[in-house]
Each structure stands twice: as C-alpha cells, then as structure tokens.
C-alpha cells in the first residue's frame, strides 16, 4: 500500500505483481530498471543518427561543393541534429535512463511510485521518436529552420519543411512532452514520497538530488514549449497570427492556408516562450551530469563529496535562478534594451553556484585516495571540459561581449563543449560505473580508455578552434563561407581541420557502443559492489537487482551516502544501511 507513514508497512515497500510472460517483462515492462534500459537504448539509437547528421554537416563545411549536399539538406541536418541531441538523446537518457534506474534503488524503494505510468511514458517517448523521423517521409522533408524553429521563417517558403516537416516536428515534440510529464511526475513523487526508513532528503546521494531538481525544472519549463508549439501549429494549420506579422515575401503579401493575410503577430513572443523553456532545458541536461560526476568522484577518490550541504544549496539556487536568465539568448533579438541589463546580471549570478560545484569537485580530489580507473578518467575529463565550456559562457552572458559574439561560432563552440562533450563524458563514465550493477559484468577497460582519450581530445581539437572562428566573426548556420573576404584562409583551413577531427571523433563513439554491447555478452563477471561504493543501489541482495529490488525487507538507512575512508574504520567505505553501532565512530 502506498501509505506514507512510519509504521511497519514501510519495511515491506509497495506490493508489486511479478510479470511472467515475455511481453510483460520486456515490452510492456513496469519494472523501472527495464524501462530505464528501454529509454537508454532508444536514446542511444537516436544519438547515432545525430552523429551521422553532424558528419554530413561537417563534410559540407570542410569541403564545400565537393559532396553533393544541398543547402536544403544542410539546414535540415542542423535542425534534426540539434533537436535529436538536446531532447531525444540527452534529456531522455539522463532522466529516462539514469533517473529511472537509479532513483528507486538509491532511495530504497521497490519501484517508482506509479509503475504503470512509467511504462506508458517510455512508449510515448518511442512514438515521439517515430514521429520525429517520420518527418523524413513527408513531402518537403524535415523542417530546416534550426532547432530553435523561429517564426516567421519556419512557416514560409524559403525554409525547407515549412509545410509538412514543421507539423511533424511539433507533433513529435508535443508527444515527447507528454511522455516527459508522465515520467517526471513519477520521479518527483517517488523521491518526495517513497524513500525508505532513515533516508532523509539530506541523506540522498547527490545524483538523486540532481535528477529530482532537473525533473522539477522540466515540469515547469516544458509547458512553455508546449504552448509555443501549439501556437506555432495553429499558425500553420488554421492560419492564426500568433507569431506571424504582415509579411511581404518574394514580391507578394504572404497568405495563410485560408487565403487571408497574416498580420499582427509577434516573432519575439515565440522567442521568449521558446527560451523560457530553452534555458532551463540545458539545466535539465546539466544537473544530472553534475550528479553523476559527484558520485564518480567521491566513489573513486574514496572520499566524501566536499561540502554536501553546500552542493545541495547550490543545486537549489541553480534551479531557481535558471528560470530568470532565459533572455540571454535574446540579447540581440530586438527586445527592449533595458532587459539586457537584467538578464546579464542574473546570468552572471548563476555562475556563482555553478562554480561552487566545480570547486567542490576539485576539493573532493584534494586529499583523496584517487583510483585512476575508467570512470574516474571520465570524471576528471569532465571537470576540464566543463571548466572550459562554463568559462566560455561568461563571455556570452556579459551582454556587451555577447553583441559581437552572438550568432557566431563562439556560441556553437560553447554549447557543444557544455552540452556535447561534457554530457557524453558524464554519460559514458556513468555507464561504465553502473554497468556491473545492471549486468553483473564490467566493461572493457582498454576500449574505455581509447574512447575517453579520443573524445576528450576532440573537445580541444574540434570545439576550442570553433571559439576562435567565432572571435574572427565567422557566423553560424552558414552553408558556405566561400566568397567572404573577411574569412581568411587560415580560418578556412581551421574549418577543414575541425571537419577531419570531428569525423575521427564521431567514428570513435562507435567504439563505446561496441564496448557496451560486447561487454553485455562477454564482459568479465564480477561479484557484487565491485567499486566498493556506499550507496544503496549496490546493497541489493543480487546484482543485477531482481524485480522489486529487495526481495524481503527494504533496507534501513543509518548514515549519509559518503562514509568513505572513515577514520578508525577497517574498510575504506561504510554502506548507507550499516547500523550506527558498527565501526564505533563518534562525531
């Protein structure tokens, strides 16, 4: 039963019925672990498509005119690449994948609060992916307006997919939002309401805090995207003018599907709605990756995360402030100039809690006992790349500096470092770390190191040069730079170099996927808790955990999740569910 009280029934946890057939075990599974793997598999497949699209784009930029890539194809590729990577890969895998797997295990629950809704959410996600790729099948192909889908161009000829592609895109995103809401309600309710005995909020591992707060952000930010999408769809389908002003294009006044003219709409309204969602969205991706890194660093440096309380407060501060910075994406959009002062200030304010987190990770390493295994490598690499990316953000948040850097490759370099390389490093580090729990085997170390170093080098070889392209004024969303006299030959050469590097790094990502699949079948089997971690997910009786996680009674938590290297203790770790009287440490 779902009573939230401190009586005996809490030790039992919720009653689950165990599935017997193949269909209810693997297709319509209500086990959070299976749902997590379903989410992750679909997300990784869409990621593969995203990488292929990025290679198409880079081939055009490095070797314009050599490959038969038309401007239409190019712009459709950047749009699909952006939407896939941000929403269908990163958001889905961090929240749907990691969130689903880790939350019940780490808080000591048998499953999510509403397993049926959980199951529905992954199926809706799958439908949204089908709709997204369905836009390749409609006349005109996918929309090519950039992942930001700005009106009026997105609905007008002159932009690919302005007739059917945009409809498919909006429908896909709307279904995704429904899937996300269903999943998100589950994660928030589960974290708030169904923790085990002794598991206070301040004893939750940081990764759970991060995923919880990221979900809260999502539940409050995705509505703005849904509304913007609905209004854009109506502009397209019923000829309303929410975002469409009076337009004179190609020598004639533009009319809608019913033959009347558009008029009176505001393109800036769309931008405000989109970025009210868009900025919190990057924190939806960033927060889980922060959490994963916290777990990896503390476990593999055998040291408690430095300043746990401050980390939690920093997360709450980031969550709150993330809702009042959105217009730093619109500094040169033509909004009231006074807003520039406000949003520049809030943007640089959010740098403060973020940097506290970076300091605390570094201070966790300090005086630690660092084991340089593959997950730790990924975590260290993350610190470096996130540092670069975050510092790049300082340039763009400072409004007057942003005036000259906006819409240039500086922006592209910045967001690819913080939203591309850093999440991939966190993702791969997290998968390496939790792979033994999920499968009972470890992933191959050599392949992991090769993948890590190539990807890490990629950050420097691909995206650091992009910052310089941006300083040189090279603009984004340009299909061809030939004929521009201010783009010097050295900048053009740099474009070629970036293309070559990105092709190599793109192919290297398949090494990770190969490692994942190969190790599932042939990886070295290990005993439980190979990393000797303190958190609850490693304390299940079997590895991988069975349906219901703890077959008999739920664990009771007696301590915080970071009792590593406790002075006077024999082992260098004490699991969370170890009773107080063991290891007689007194505060």
């Amino acid at each position: 039963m779902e009573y939230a009280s401190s009586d005996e029934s809490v030790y039992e946890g919720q009653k689950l019925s165990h599935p017997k057939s193949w269909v209810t075990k693997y297709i319509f599974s209500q086990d959070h672990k299976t749902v997590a793997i379903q989410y992750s598999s679909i997300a990784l497949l869409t990621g593969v498509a995203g990488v292929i699209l990025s290679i198409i784009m880079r081939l055009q930029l490095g070797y314009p005119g050599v490959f038969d890539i038309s401007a239409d194809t190019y712009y459709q590729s950047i749009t699909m690449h952006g939407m896939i990577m941000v929403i269908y890969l990163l958001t889905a895998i961090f929240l749907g994948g990691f969130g689903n797997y880790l939350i019940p295990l780490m808080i000591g629950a048998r499953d999510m609060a509403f397993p049926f809704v959980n199951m529905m959410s992954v199926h809706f996600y799958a439908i949204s992916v089908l709709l997204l790729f369905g836009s390749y099948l409609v006349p005109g192909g996918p929309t090519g307006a950039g992942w930001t889908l700005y009106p009026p161009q997105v609905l007008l000829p002159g932009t690919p997919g302005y007739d059917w592609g945009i409809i498919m895109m909006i429908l896909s995103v709307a279904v995704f939002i429904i899937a996300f809401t269903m999943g998100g309600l589950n994660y928030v309710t589960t974290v708030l309401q169904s923790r085990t005995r002794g598991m206070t909020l301040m004893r939750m591992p940081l990764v759970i805090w991060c995923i919880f707060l990221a979900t809260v952000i999502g539940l409050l930010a995705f509505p703005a995207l849904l509304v913007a999408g609905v209004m854009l769809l109506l502009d397209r389908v019923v000829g309303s003018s929410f975002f469409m002003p009076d337009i004179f294009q190609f020598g004639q006044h533009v009319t809608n599907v019913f033959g009347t003219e558009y008029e009176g709409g505001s393109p800036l309204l769309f931008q405000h709605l989109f970025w009210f969602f868009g900025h919190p969205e990057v924190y939806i991706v960033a927060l889980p990756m922060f959490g994963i890194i916290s777990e990896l660093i503390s476990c593999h440096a055998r040291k408690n995360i430095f300043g746990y309380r401050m980390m939690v407060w920093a997360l709450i501060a980031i969550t709150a402030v993330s809702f009042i910075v959105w217009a730093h994406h619109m500094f040169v959009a033509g909004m009231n100039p006074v807003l520039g002062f406000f949003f520049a200030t809030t943007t640089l304010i959010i740098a403060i809690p973020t940097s506290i987190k970076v300091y605390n990770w570094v201070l966790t390493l300090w005086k630690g006992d660092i084991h340089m295994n593959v997950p730790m490598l990924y975590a260290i690499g993350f610190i470096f790349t996130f540092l670069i990316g975050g510092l790049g953000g300082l340039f763009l948040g400072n409004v007057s500096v942003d005036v000259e850097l906006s819409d240039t490759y500086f922006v592209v370099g910045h967001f690819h470092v913080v939203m591309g390389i850093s999440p991939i490093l966190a993702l791969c580090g997290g998968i390496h770390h939790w792979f033994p729990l999920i499968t009972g085997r470890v992933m191959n170390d050599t392949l992991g190191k090769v993948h890590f170093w190539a990807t890490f080098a990629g950050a420097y070889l691909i995206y650091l040069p992009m910052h310089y392209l941006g300083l040189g004024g090279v603009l984004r969303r340009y299909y061809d730079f030939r004929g521009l006299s201010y783009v010097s030959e050295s900048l053009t050469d740099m474009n070629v170099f970036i293309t070559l590097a990105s092709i190599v790094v793109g192919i290297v990502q398949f090494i990770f996927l190969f490692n994942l699949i190969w190790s599932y079948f042939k990886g070295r089997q290990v005993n439980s808790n190979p990393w000797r971690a303190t958190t609850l997910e490693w304390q299940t009786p079997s590895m991988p955990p069975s349906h219901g996680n703890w077959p008999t009674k739920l664990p009771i938590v007696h301590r915080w999740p970071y009792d590593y290297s406790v002075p006077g203790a024999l082992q260098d770790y004490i699991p969370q569910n170890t009773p107080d009287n063991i290891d007689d440490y007194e505060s």
Partner: protein
Amino acid sequence: MTMRVNMNTHSNSSLIKTHIQDLIVDWSSDVSTFKVRWSKAMMWIFLISDTFIFGTFLISYMAVRLTVIDPWPDTSQVFALHVGGTDVPLLLIAIMTFVLISSSGTMALAVNASQKKLRLRSGVLILLTAFGGLMFIGMQAFEWTKLIVDEGVRPWANAFGAQQFGSFFFMITGFHGLHVTIGVIYLSVIAKRVLQGRYDRLNDYQIVEVSGLYWHFVDLVWVFIFAFFYLW
C-alpha cells in the same frame, strides 16, 4: 555514524532562523516529505505543471493584446446574448461561471461525504458535479457555434477587430474545455466506482479527494480566463 546536519545551535539564533531550520528538518525527513498519499502528491505536482501551461497561454494572450495595432474587440458586446429584445452582455458567460463554481461546490460536498464513507451521497454528488461540467461544455459549445456560424469568427479573421482575438479565444477556451471534458469522464468513472462499492471494499475513499483537486483546478483556471479574457 549518522551525518548530523550541522544545525546552528547558537543560543542567540533568531526566531526566523529556527523556523527555517524546523522547516528544513520537516521537509527533509525520512520516507516522505509531504505526509499524504502518493496519488495526492502526484496530482498536486501535475496541477502545478498544468498551471504553468495555462499561465503561459494567458501571459501570451496579454502580451499580444498589448502589442497588436488593430483594436481589440469589446468583449461585452461580442459575448452578449440577445434575450427578450435587449442585448445582455456576458450573460452566457455569467451562467457558465455560476454552473462551474456550483459544481466545485458539489464536489467539495462529495469529498466531505467520502471522508465520512457515505457511499450513496458521495456518489450522487460526484455525478452532479460531472453533470455541471457537462452543462458547462454544452454552453461553451453553444458559444462557439454562435461565434463561428452567426458572427463568422475564425482563427484567422473576425469582423470585430484584431485577428488574434479569435485565435486566442478558440485556443484558450478549447484547451480549458478539453480539460473539463477529461474531468467529466474522469469523475464519471470515479462516481461509478463509488456507487459500485469499490472503495467500501478497499476501505479507502481518498481517490475522491484527489479527483476533487483536479476539478477545483479546472474551475480556478476558468476564473482566471473569465477575468482576463472576458472581463478585461
């Protein structure tokens, strides 16, 4: 060793600080933050998210209304009913609001009855609420028909003024009407289960309160739509 949260124990800590500390201890306590059942917590969280949806619709509407160049129609004339020879402004809306608010009243009575485990009374009251919702939908449909067929209001144009008037009207009332319709179906299912004695067998009527939350939300949204779209 338990990680003792390093709470300030200065003898001269202020009253506010103690209150905040107590709040933190309460909300971070083990097992559950809010001492309610999971379904009720989830409904509240869903409603917060839905509030953002309607809030965004209304804020967008206000932003557009403030910036269109064409004049905005006078709602008291557009939404007037011709009764007994005179135009009565906003009559239909007033009736719709009365019906919806009354249905919230019957819902509150239903929740009250369910807490006392009165099967028949609470079931009937839920049905009355659903019926109120159905009447609301019917009147909204009548309003739409009148505007579309008689006045020629379309999402892309209307005879009264700014084109966005029609599009916002249909979009916002459409989404609200959709939520009311879902609520009517939801409440009918709950009412059926109540009357069949399902919750007597489980000895647990809490679902009525959870569905009541949803219905009050739908009503509250209508109040805001009524205020911002019709009265302003």
